[in-house]
């Protein structure tokens, strides 16, 4: 009974997308949308098949592009989270550290990650390191700010209660601050992965060494004028982003089931 409702709900959620595709196909078939500006859904699907079977550039199939892009994001993301979460908790805990680092962070944060590309290439060369660095910058600040906010939002009475139960500073850190900040950390991780994924594709527009990456793939498709493959590539990026967010949402629901 419950499963059935959930299934029909999911179908209903996808319904507008089907309607949109149908509408789009009709306009294309009737010749209202010129195919050189926007290929039809069927053409996009064929483009997707070409990306999978032939690759773009030929011999570079889609799944390798995906793997390379995911790897870059993963690398930058993991480094950012490993640094931002402990630092965020420390900043939430210590007013001194907040005073010390706050202004620096406020200055660096508004700089778009893409503005770091020239410096990043200068420092790391073209390749995985510089791409990962760009992702890192995009992911780092949302996780840091959300973590700090999460710690600051913990009810001080919980810290007092822990102290009256003989908690050491270490206990407070691991058993009050971290679990208390988990909901905000998860929010930061989700915002971060979204930004990281967006940043990645843009970062790949500037060039990649191995010749793999979804952004690179799209730019190559543009160079040889295959709008169907451009759009197929865009949709792949969107779907992967959706899947990552969905995965994190599941993790979040599990970790903050006490809410």
């Amino acid at each position, binding site marked *: 009974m419950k499963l059935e409702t959930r299934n029909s709900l999911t179908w209903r959620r996808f319904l507008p997308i089907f309607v949109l595709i149908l509408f789009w196909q009709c306009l294309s078939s009737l010749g209202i949308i010129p195919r050189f500006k926007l290929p039809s859904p069927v053409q996009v699907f064929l483009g997707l098949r070409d990306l999978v079977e032939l690759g773009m550039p030929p011999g570079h199939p889609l799944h390798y592009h995906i793997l390379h892009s995911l790897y870059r994001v993963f690398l930058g993301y993991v480094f950012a989270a490993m640094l931002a979460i402990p630092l965020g908790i420390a900043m939430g805990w210590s007013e001194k550290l907040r005073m010390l680092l706050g202004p620096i962070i406020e200055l660096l944060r508004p700089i778009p990650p893409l503005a770091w590309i020239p410096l990043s290439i200068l420092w790391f060369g073209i390749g995985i390191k510089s791409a990962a660095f760009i992702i890192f910058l995009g992911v780092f600040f949302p996780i840091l700010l959300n973590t700090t906010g999460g710690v600051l939002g913990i009810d001080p009475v919980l810290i007092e209660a822990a102290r*009256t139960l003989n908690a050491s500073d270490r206990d407070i850190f691991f058993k009050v601050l971290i679990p*208390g900040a988990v909901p905000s950390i998860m929010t930061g991780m989700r915002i971060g992965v979204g930004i990281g994924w967006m940043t990645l594709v843009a970062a790949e527009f500037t060039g990649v060494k191995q010749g793999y990456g979804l952004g690179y793939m799209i730019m190559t498709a543009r160079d040889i004028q295959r709008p169907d493959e451009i759009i197929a590539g865009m949709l792949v990026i969107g779907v992967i982003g959706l899947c990552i967010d969905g995965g994190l949402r599941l993790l979040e629901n599990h970790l903050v089931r006490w809410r």
Partner: protein
Amino acid sequence: MGLELSQVTKIYSGRKPEENVRVLDRIDFQIRKGEFFSIVGPSGCGKTTLLRIIAGLDQASEGKVLLGGSEVTGIDERMGMVFQEYALFPWRTTIQNIEMGLEMMKIPKKERRSAAMEYIRAFGLDGFENRFPKALSGGMKQRVSIARTLIMNPEVVLMDEPFASLDNQTRNDLQNFLIRVWDKRKDTVLFVTHNVDEAVYLSDRIMVLSERPSEILEIFDINLPRPRDRTSRRSNKIRKKVLELLSRKG
């Protein structure tokens, strides 16, 4: 050996000396071991501040707190505290909340579990041991909070208006429950409340504080037999005396 306060004074300093606020003024009293001792006073009179000083969560400006003859200088493991808003860790289940203090003392998990289960049974929390606080009623939350404190067997149990945010019926139930538990264990309890009825129903002695700067107006002995009748003539008489004292000064 009980708890002893000697000339405890609390001054919140303002920007200039004349802006200083004196909250507590030379508070001097002793609580005997096994005694149920309540503090009542008008709201904002500093009774919570007094409790926080005793708990080591706040510092006295002058005077000292002695427990068993030795001075209390900070958070003291010989004391336990029950907070008004329960202060349960929302990410911990009932049993994990009750276990928290034992966990801090590095008691092995198996022992912790079985000790906590005893409290869960005795406190009528069966079936809720793996629930998170959000799934508990206010009365249950406060029972968890009391269990979390009592499982540590503190020498003094400090309670800061523990029933203030409960509805009347739940509040009466919990008062009866607390007294049953106390009757068995004979903990030394220091109970802060603004509710005179509650204080008269529960306490061996009641200390009445004045408005700020708070000083002790009087300490009443409540020599009523237990179990008590909330509406007995003698209990009404004491209630009237305490209320009169409070309204005269406030």
